């Protein structure tokens, strides 16, 4: 819960008569997505070699719904022996079946998987929302359709790889170890598995500890799709399971999406090997708004940039750099827009901001927000009625933020926006780049030449100009600097899973 003493009024200061005071009296009645179509087993084993297996450890851990704190199911803890079995299954499948298979046949499996995701989209979306806390509107309209699109896109590449890179004879790497985060559980699975399979690799994937359910659902899709045993294997568990997987000696490729701290550990663990590594890590994206921007649209972009998925987005625009000339006006508009965000039950179709994924993440956000207040930044939070149980955080703005504040430097991974100012393009670029991260940046201006000038200079793998948080299977995604290396999506993303001899 928030300390309400810090909450400031939602009504922007006014100097004139007509005021816009949101939200209105017209309350939307709850419109809850039914969870009826979803069946969740009491307990899930490990999906290895095409079948469900008991973990060697004999241990399970609970997975909870972060919006209710109710236990949804129990998930197996995979230990070293389980990881070994999974890697062995993947190796066998690679050598016996998937490696020798023609690209056209591989493509058909991926197309089939894409179709099955579309057919079962509603179930997956509900499951995703229950397990992870994200609004059903997002899992329904973004995560799951994008995941299907990723399989569809990569399916088409499977028999065209010789055209992807001039002079390169396309070869898979072998067994890919993939570790994914909890913010987009099913979509990150698609980002990892689709290109790996399209290029002829087999996979052992570990979903995040708090969000295993949709990955386990995917296992049933693989099964129904008739995917040969061992091509996709799932090991569940916490960091230890992931560490065991990425350092397994019979793994040829490691792909990790998660925090920069863990990414560094993985890179160090792989020292002395020639495993191909791609890392998609943290960010502290700058969202730069010039005074000539289409301001209302920029407000939309900024709000989407930081409050999408509760701010649990590595490329979130968590630092707003707004030109000094429009600072007050823009912040007023932002505050007003913030007041319309609907925070609460993720299964309600009208919810904009759902539950924080875990208690641990809530504690981290709370700690950083407290540091912002202690450092002297000005906090703004609209009034929100939050559910009593579950993990919640009110959408938060900080103004008067200095570059040296922790909230301007550290990745918060929550619905918290830090607002700074700049005077000219040079200063905007300098401030935007003044971070060890380099994943995303946003620029809002109507001046075309300035967009291109800025885009050239921003150290970011993705630059959104007059838009933000756009994703597409055809568009490569990945970071500069400590946000990682390698790309996911697009033609470029194939390289992460191909042996180009380099």
């Amino acid at each position: 819960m928030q300390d309400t003493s810090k909450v400031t009024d939602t009504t922007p200061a006014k100097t004139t008569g007509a005021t816009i005071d949101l939200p209105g009296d017209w309350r939307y009645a709850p419109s809850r997505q039914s969870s009826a179509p979803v069946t969740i087993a009491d307990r899930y084993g490990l999906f290895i070699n095409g079948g469900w297996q008991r973990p060697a450890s004999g241990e399970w851990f609970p997975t909870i719904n972060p919006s209710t704190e109710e236990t949804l199911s129990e998930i197996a803890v995979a230990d070293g022996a389980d990881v070994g079995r999974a890697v062995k299954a993947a190796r066998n499948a690679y050598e016996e079946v998937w490696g020798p298979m023609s690209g056209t046949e591989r493509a058909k499996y991926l197309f089939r998987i894409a179709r099955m995701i579309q057919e079962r989209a509603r179930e997956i979306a509900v499951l995703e929302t229950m397990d992870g806390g994200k609004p059903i509107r997002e899992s329904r309209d973004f995560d799951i359709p994008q995941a299907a699109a990723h399989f569809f896109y990569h399916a088409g590449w499977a028999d065209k790889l010789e055209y992807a890179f001039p002079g390169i004879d396309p070869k898979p790497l072998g067994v890919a170890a993939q570790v994914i985060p909890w913010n987009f559980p099913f979509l990150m699975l698609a980002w990892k598995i689709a290109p790996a399979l399209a290029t002829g690799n087999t996979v052992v994937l570990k979903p995040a500890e708090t969000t295993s359910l949709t990955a386990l659902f995917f296992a049933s899709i693989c099964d129904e799709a008739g995917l040969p045993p061992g091509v996709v294997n799932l090991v569940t568990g916490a960091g230890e399971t992931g560490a065991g997987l990425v350092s397994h000696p019979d793994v040829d490729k490691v792909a990790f999406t998660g925090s920069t701290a863990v990414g560094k550990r993985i890179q160090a663990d792989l020292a002395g090997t020639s495993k191909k590594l791609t890392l998609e890590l943290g960010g502290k994206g700058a969202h730069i708004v010039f005074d000539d921007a289409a301001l209302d649209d920029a407000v939309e972009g900024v709000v989407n940039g930081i409050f999408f998925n509760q701010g649990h987005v590595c490329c979130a625009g968590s630092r707003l750099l707004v030109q000094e000339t429009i600072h007050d006006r823009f912040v007023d508009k932002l505050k007003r827009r913030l007041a319309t965000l609907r925070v609460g039950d993720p299964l309600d179709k009208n919810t904009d901001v759902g539950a924080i994924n875990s208690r641990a993440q809530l504690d981290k956000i709370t700690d950083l927000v407290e540091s912002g207040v202690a450092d002297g930044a000005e906090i703004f939070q609209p009034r929100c009625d939050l559910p009593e149980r579950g993990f919640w955080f009110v959408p938060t703005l900080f103004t008067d933020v200095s570059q040296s504040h922790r909230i301007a430097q550290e990745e918060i991974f929550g619905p918290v926006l830090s607002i700074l100012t700049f005077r000219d393009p040079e200063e905007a670029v300098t401030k935007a780049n003044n971070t060890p991260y380099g994943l995303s940046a946003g620029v809002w201006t109507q001046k075309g030449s300035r967009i291109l000038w800025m885009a050239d200079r921003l150290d970011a793998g993705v630059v959104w100009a007059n838009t933000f948080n756009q994703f597409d299977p055809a568009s490569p995604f990945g970071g500069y600097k400590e946000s990682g290396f390698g790309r996911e999506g697009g033609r470029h993303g194939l390289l992460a899973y191909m042996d180009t001899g380099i």
Partner: protein
Amino acid sequence: MTLAPSRDSVLPDRITNASLRSFLGGVGTVDEVMTHRRVAELATRSIKKDSKRAALLTAVRMMDLTTLEGRDTPGKVRQLAAKAIRPIPGDPTIPSTAAVCVYPNLVPVAAEAVAGTGVRVASVATYFPSGQLGTPEKVAEVEHVVSLGADEIDMVIDRGAFLRGDYLAVFDEIRRIKDACGDLHLKVILETGELASYDDVRRASMLAMAAGGDFIKTSTGKISPAATREVTLVMLKAIADFADATGVQVGMKPAGGIRTAKDAIRYLVILNETLGAGWMTPEWFRFGASSLLNDVLMQIRWLDTGRYQDPDHFTEA
């Protein structure tokens, strides 16, 4: 410091075409893609049960029930007025619409039919729908319509003048017509289907508000596209900025092409999440529509009964 609300606060001291051009140059631009995206996002709002009933009843109260046809007759207008006053005969829980909207000739008929009911009479004027005549003639028409007993005047802007950059002509004309209206509410139709871009819609909105429009309105209904949710969002945001800059509240009327209850609710969602409570009344928001009312009524009945309805049970106006 609190200043009295004044439209003049956004206007240059000396009003010339050049100074108006520079005023409009500073009102900012609109991104088409983001506008569409926001409208699509708001279209996913799921409005159920009590909130749906509230929205539908509000929509009825916001309606300018309209007939603007060459074949309109006094009889037709009297039927329309009866429908406006009591949308479902014998059901007092269904409120009256805000107004009936007719051509000038029929204003006296309409005024007589709604007298004492609270339903207002709106009339189109200024050589509606094209507006292709000189300002003095338009002013004379408006003066005439006022004398016939209209409560509200819906004028069209001179789109030709706007598109050729003669902002002073557009501005002056609105001012003079507002003067001719006296205390009557003036709704300024931009005819957005004839404006090239959302940037033009935004500029025309600002010009109309600065010149004295009490409402800005999308369309005559005679040009396609008429009202769209996107263009409405653009205009609502202009209204917000105008209110911020001047303290003056201006109303909004999408008109033409809004035919279903679902459509109406989507407009109300956009209104609710853009301007909020202060605009969620017939005083500040109207639907210009003719066939919308019956669909809204059918939906209200569906909420009441849980059964899908037969249009033949709802009277034609």
